[in-house]
């Protein structure tokens, strides 16, 4: 059961993060996070199908995380949710056209290794 939930979280996180990144880049640069900018950000988000889709995907992942937290410790559950890191990095390079060089690959790889150790 734990691993089914991890798979659900991985897929929904990947789809959600990619949609949110693409959608937020189209909305524009958020300057700060005061009350005014929160309100503006909310208005911009409800007008963006991409970000709404991304949030919906992450919401599915969120409820799966809640379930996972009810049957596993937080030290297992939270790192297990980062199983999508490598897929997101590859897709961000080729779909979002981000410049991913050796430092970011190494950083992502180290984070994944660290998370596997954290989940052990």
């Amino acid at each position, binding site marked *: 059961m734990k691993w089914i939930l991890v798979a659900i979280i991985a897929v929904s996180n990947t789809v959600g993060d990619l949609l949110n990144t693409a959608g937020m880049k189209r909305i524009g640069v958020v300057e700060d996070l005061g009350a005014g900018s929160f309100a503006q950000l909310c208005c911009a988000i409800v007008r963006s199908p991409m970000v709404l889709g991304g949030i919906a995907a992450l919401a599915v992942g969120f409820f799966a995380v809640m379930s996972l937290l*009810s049957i596993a410790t937080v030290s297992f559950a939270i790192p297990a949710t980062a199983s999508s890191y490598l897929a997101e990095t590859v897709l961000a390079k080729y779909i979002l056209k981000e*410049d991913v060089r050796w430092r970011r690959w190494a950083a992502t790889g180290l984070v994944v290794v660290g998370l596997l150790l954290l989940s052990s």
Partner: protein
Amino acid sequence: MLESHIRKPSSRELLDESRSSPFASKTHLLTAMAVLTNVTGNICLSYGMQEVGRTVSVSPADYVRALLNPWVLAGSFTLAVWMMSELALLSRADLTFVLPVTASAYGLTALAGHFVLGDQISWQRWLGIAVISIGVFLAEETPSLTSVEP
């Protein structure tokens, strides 16, 4: 006229600006906010869900019931703030920058889980925290923004 907190500069302007100190400082501030709200939200959520008990269901009603727990509610609200911070961060930084940089939240969550919730941390997990930290520092060395619009 209302002050606008969201700008839409040209791609070239934005990429040039992303290398400036003020832009980088705001990005770091948002990163810190995202990390802290992520850690706090997950700890509150975990504590609350342990109190609620096993909740693996396709029925939304079960999750609504879980949200009645004050810790689950506080955790969910804090994670909503985390979500907004993350979205703000993604508006001004690459996903492949944000992912490793905010991974420090995992190490901090494990530490908080140990000191607040009594989770055991084995040597493998301590090593994991150290390895993640190296990854975070390495990612911080890269430019935060390389792609504006796909």
